[in-house]
C-alpha cells in the first residue's frame, strides 16, 4: 500500500474519528472503506444518469455483469431505459 498525505476539513476528521470508534477500526481502514463506498456510489449514480453502460459499471466496480445487476437490484436503482425506448423495442419483432 502507498502512503499519501492530504488535507482534510475538521468536519471530515471528526467523521473519521466517529466512524473509527463506531466500527472499532483504525482511521486508515475507515478512510479506505469510505473511498470504496464513495467510488461505488459515484459510479452507480453515473450509471443511473445513463452516462455509463452496464458493462463499464461492472468493470469499474470490479464485478461481473451479473453481480452488478444484483447490486443495482439490491439498491433498487431504476434502469435508465425510458418508456419511449420500451415502445420502440416492440418494433424489432415486426
Amino acid at each position: 500500500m502507498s502512503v499519501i498525505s492530504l488535507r482534510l476539513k475538521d468536519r471530515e476528521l471528526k467523521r473519521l474519528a466517529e466512524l473509527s470508534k463506531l466500527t472499532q477500526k483504525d482511521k486508515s481502514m475507515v478512510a479506505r472503506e469510505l473511498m470504496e463506498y464513495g467510488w461505488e456510489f459515484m459510479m452507480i449514480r453515473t450509471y443511473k444518469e445513463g452516462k455509463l453502460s452496464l458493462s463499464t459499471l461492472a468493470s469499474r466496480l470490479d464485478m461481473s455483469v451479473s453481480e452488478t445487476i444484483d447490486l443495482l437490484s439490491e439498491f433498487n436503482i431504476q434502469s435508465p431505459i425510458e418508456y419511449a425506448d420500451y415502445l420502440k423495442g416492440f418494433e424489432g419483432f415486426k
Partner: protein
Amino acid sequence: MEIVFDSSTLILLAKIELIRLVTEDYQVLIPDRVMQECVSKDIFDAQLISQLITEGAIKVLKADNKAVISKLCRDFKIHTGEAEALYLAMKRKTLLAVDDLPTIKACKIFNQRFTTAVHFLITIAQQGKLDKESAFVKLEKLAVYGRYSRRIIDDAYARLKGGS
C-alpha cells in the same frame, strides 16, 4: 430469426429462467466478449448460459473488426462486449437484444433495431408458449432484476393480461 444478444439482456433472461425458451424460438448469437462477461463467475445464470452454449443453443461468434469496435467504445462510452454485440447486429442486419441505455442510444443513431428482456417475455407469453401465471411470476422477477420503470412494468402487465 437470429438475434444478437448483449450480456445485459442475456443475463436478465437467464435470471428469470426464460432464456432456454428464447433459444427454442430464436437463433441466439453472442460475440466472444459477451460470452466471457456472462460465464465469468460460478453462479446460476452463468452456469445456465454456459450449458446452453455447450448444447449449441447459443452460438458464439467472433467480432473481428477491432478498429470499428474500439471506435464504438470511444464514441458511445460503451464497453467492449456491448460494442461487439452492436457491431455484430449491424453487420448481420439483425435485431440486437440489449438492456443498456448508452447502447440503445447508439442503436438509435445507427437506426439499428433493438429489443429488451421484457419484450421477450411479452412476445413468448402472447404466443401462448408460457402460461399467464408463469408469465406474471417472471415479470415480477424481471421488475426486480431489470429494474424497469413502473410505467413499463404496468404496461407489460397489461399486455400479459391481454390488454393490448
